[in-house]
């Protein structure tokens, strides 16, 4: 049997590696949390904050910041085109993967996720600081959006009609239509409950170890998806409610398992479940 390893292990680093690279000027640590105040209570020394709602979302449209705004953001955070950006965050790195996905969308090349995220760093007793670092602005040039990792609704519709793999990474209750939103997260829902016809339910958190937030080993991840018929030869689209949980699944499929064609449908259920005349399965 071949060695049990991730397809692209360079995209994942351990907390110990990060601890050894705190002074490395070629690396920028970026904390991306669900809780918008958590960074301020203490973060890894040298890390900058990215808040997905106030910094990554377009202020008017339902969309992400555009290319020029992304360039301005990177400049402000002291990120150069050749900087290695290491993301970490709360909730099993769920929002760290969301930020990672957006950086990949604008073509940033050197990206990593810190395995275990913020919780593991804290549990290991590693240092935190409230000191907010500042870095000299850079001349950042983003690439045009990478359409190969983002799905819009028309493409999802075609995907559905061709019975290609769709993964619904929400909770079973949301998938079944019993709930219009995540348990405990009322109101960010939709007019209708259920899932996109043909979508398979593989809740996102099944890809991580609940005790230390690290990703499950390669063989377990492979089994998780292949047992549902999600194999690397197929084009895969993942979605959730607003595209955040599914960006973790996207990361797992693309970088840990090496699936070549995986997209995140960030419109997700809050778009599909509100679309007039869109087919729904319960």
């Amino acid at each position, binding site marked *: 049997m071949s060695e049990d390893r991730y397809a692209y292990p360079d995209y994942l680093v351990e907390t110990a590696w990060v601890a050894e690279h705190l002074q490395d000027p070629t690396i920028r640590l970026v904390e991306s949390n669900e*809780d*918008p*105040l*958590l960074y*301020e*209570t203490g973060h890894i020394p040298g890390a900058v904050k990215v808040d997905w*709602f*106030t910094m990554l979302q377009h202020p008017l449209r339902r969309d992400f910041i555009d290319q020029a705004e992304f360039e301005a953001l990177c400049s402000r955070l002291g990120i150069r085109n050749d900087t290695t950006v290491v993301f970490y965050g*709360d*909730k*099993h790195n*769920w929002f760290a993967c969301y930020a990672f996905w957006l950086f990949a969308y604008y073509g940033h090349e050197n990206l990593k996720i810190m395995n275990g995220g*913020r*919780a593991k760093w*804290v549990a290991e007793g590693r240092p935190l600081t409230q000191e907010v670092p500042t870095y000299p602005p850079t001349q950042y040039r983003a690439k045009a959006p990478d359409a190969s990792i983002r799905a819009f609704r028309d493409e999802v519709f075609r995907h559905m009609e061709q019975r290609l793999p769709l993964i619904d990474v929400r*909770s079973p*209750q949301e998938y079944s239509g019993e709930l219009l939103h*995540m*348990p*405990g*997260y*009322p*109101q*960010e829902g939709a007019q209708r409950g259920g899932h996109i016809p043909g979508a398979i339910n593989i809740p996102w*958190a099944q890809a991580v170890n609940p005790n230390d937030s690290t990703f499950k080993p390669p063989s377990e991840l492979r089994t998780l998806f292949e047992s549902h018929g999600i194999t690397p030869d197929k084009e895969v689209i993942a979605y959730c409610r607003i595209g955040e949980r599914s960006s973790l699944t996207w990361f797992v499929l693309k970088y840990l398992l090496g699936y070549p064609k995986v997209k995140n449908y960030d419109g997700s259920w809050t778009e599909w479940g509100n679309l007039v005349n869109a087919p729904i399965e319960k």
Partner: protein
Amino acid sequence: MEISTSIPPRLSEILDDFQLSDRHEKMELLLDFSGRLLPLPEGLATANVQPEPVPECMTPVTVTMLNQGGRLRFYFDVPAEAPTIRGYAAIIQQGLWDETPETILQIPDDFYLRMGLHQILTPQRLNGLIAIVAHVKRLAAQVLNMPANPKPTIL
């Protein structure tokens, strides 16, 4: 029947502080509150408040009410890694400190709009605040023997 609404003075001051702050100051203010959440005084039994298991990785919050001769105090147990929810809890704790159940039941459900938190927080994060207030009102209703849900709130 028309139900009259009003906001007790301390809570109203807090709302004003938020209203008058810009986006950055609102964040600072909420963070400041999150660091000032008073814990349940030692020696008080909390056995009657059982946290419920939470699906996914949401924030479990429990509320304990102290009734001192008709004046209410609320204590919240919120994990340290949820400072936004801690901030909400501290606003409610301080804003309603030693108020009567009648006063608490008169707070309008949309009182928080004045704070302008939607500029910095997603609707789902604001729901935490709404849920805390709804639960505090249920507890206040219990004191008055009105229909109430005795279960602790899970956010």
